[in-house]
């Protein structure tokens, strides 16, 4: 506080709330949000004009559309399942039995964020056995690695908001085994955390291009790329459509999640924060 006192020149009353009205007024906030909105919506509008309304009708009938979309959706489902089955028990187990390993787990799961996918796929293609390389399972298996940072963080935040030890002890004193405890006690308490893990995983899989294209699988993003060379307008229409549908999907999931969480005393669900009010900021 001494620094503040020095700044005020003697004899002159320190001007409170100087020049720019950065607070108390909502002007700057609206300016920031308006500029951001224009920057993000203008290209969409320009692309919409470029594609023309007619292109949207012909997206569905374009060759390769159905098969590539089906592949992407299938990959999203498989990836999400493996991610949950692998990460949920591991994270719960580490929280309960091996809390010392938490930092290590955190460190390992952040790696896929910093390792470029293009480097990872080089290594994967170099060592993966032929029978896995031949199927799209290869992609699903690697997408689990890419989704790990988000999935782990979401589940971890959810677990921190719980009194995990007590509820697990209560459950086992009532005679429940590990699986039963996980399935009937921990899982329902982690609904919102899992929801955000799923949302982030699905968004990631549906948008991933680098690995899919370099491993030569025609997922939806790869199809858009290949198709753009022959019919640009249809490709733009398809990608606008994909963007809009994904967004609606995410919005629906967060709104449902928030309603659920309100019912059980939680708070607003966003994509990254799932902790309850009383646990944050400590």
């Amino acid at each position, binding site marked *: 506080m001494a620094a503040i006192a020095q700044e005020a020149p003697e004899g002159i009353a320190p001007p409170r709330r100087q020049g720019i009205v950065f607070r108390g007024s909502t002007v700057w906030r609206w300016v920031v949000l308006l500029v951001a909105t224009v920057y993000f919506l203008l290209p969409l509008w320009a692309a919409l004009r470029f594609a023309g309304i007619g292109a949207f009708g012909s997206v569905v009938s374009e060759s390769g559309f159905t098969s590539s979309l089906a592949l992407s959706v299938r990959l999203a489902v498989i990836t999400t399942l493996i991610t949950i089955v692998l990460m949920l028990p591991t994270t719960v187990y580490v929280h309960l039995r091996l809390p010392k390993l938490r930092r290590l787990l955190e460190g390992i799961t952040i790696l896929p964020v910093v390792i*470029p996918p293009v480097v990872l796929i080089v290594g994967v293609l170099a060592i993966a056995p032929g029978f896995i390389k031949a199927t799209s399972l290869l992609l699903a298996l690697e997408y689990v690695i890419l989704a790990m940072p988000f999935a782990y963080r979401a589940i971890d935040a959810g677990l921190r908001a719980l009194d995990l030890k007590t509820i697990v002890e209560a459950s086992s004193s009532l005679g429940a085994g590990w699986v039963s405890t996980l399935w009937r006690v921990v899982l329902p308490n982690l609904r919102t955390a899992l929801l955000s893990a799923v949302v982030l995983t699905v968004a990631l899989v549906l948008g991933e291009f680098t690995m899919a294209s370099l491993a030569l699988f025609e997922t939806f993003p790869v199809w858009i790329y290949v198709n753009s060379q022959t019919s640009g307008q249809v490709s733009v229409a398809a990608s606008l459509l994909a963007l809009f549908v994904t967004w609606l999907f995410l919005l629906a999931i967060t709104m449902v999640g928030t309603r659920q969480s309100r019912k059980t005393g939680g708070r607003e669900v966003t994509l990254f924060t799932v902790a309850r009010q009383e646990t944050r900021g400590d």
Partner: protein
Amino acid sequence: MPKLLRGLRRAAGVVPFGVYVTLGLFAPMAAVAIGAFEDNNGNFTFSNVKAATHGIYLHGFWQSIVLSVLTSVIPGILGLMIAYALYTAKRGRVLRQVAITAAGVFANFGGVPLAFLFIATIGSSGLVSQWLTTLGFDPYAHGFTLYSLTGVVIVYLYFQIPLMVLVILPALEGLRPAWREAAENLGARTWDYWRHVGGPVLLPSFLGCVLLLFGSALSAYATTEALTNGTIPLTAIQIGSFLNGNVIAGQENIGKALGLGMVVIIAVAMLIYVVLQRRAAKWLR
């Protein structure tokens, strides 16, 4: 001995995860690192690394670093401002949910679709270029082009800003409104509040988020590939071209050396982050 056995049994719960990460992450990365020092017959050699640090590949590293620094610091600051505006919006629950889910979508947006969006907007005959030309300022007559480094920066902001908004929001929630009120009651102005309260609380997470953005920019592949068709040499694209088979046969391992180089760059960036955070901790005392 029983103690060791018990320890092993306790560790059993993390074995599936450990095996998965080893096979899916560590083994491929080891393959890259080893391959970088092997010739095509599997003999030890430095020639890949030597090739990767000279000529067009060195230039590629340089361009990648410049681009990544620009597209992590600029969207870092802009994203923080937007996130703060969203966070402080009163009664803005719907606005916030719409904006955050939109950020989730845009952060994963990229590749050809994104390139098309900007070609339609500020390409040589794009919408905004036309508007500006009508107003008497043709950006393409003044040296601007979308297919340059500046152009790529503008395009990258489209997914980097939303990413920043997503990752910095949880940190902003740590700023209690009560702290601001307390600071103001003690006579603090906006600058004082940010210098002594808000800044110190936010700085570590801000640096962490910028580091994440740096990694994201460095590994961005699809967008630049679609936009520039290789006119700007970036390391990620050069690695991709080794896999696409666009290079002379027998040099595949240079791609692995380039991959190793990228990992080294990231490692150095993380080191700088750690040092900066230590410095920051000292400065903020």
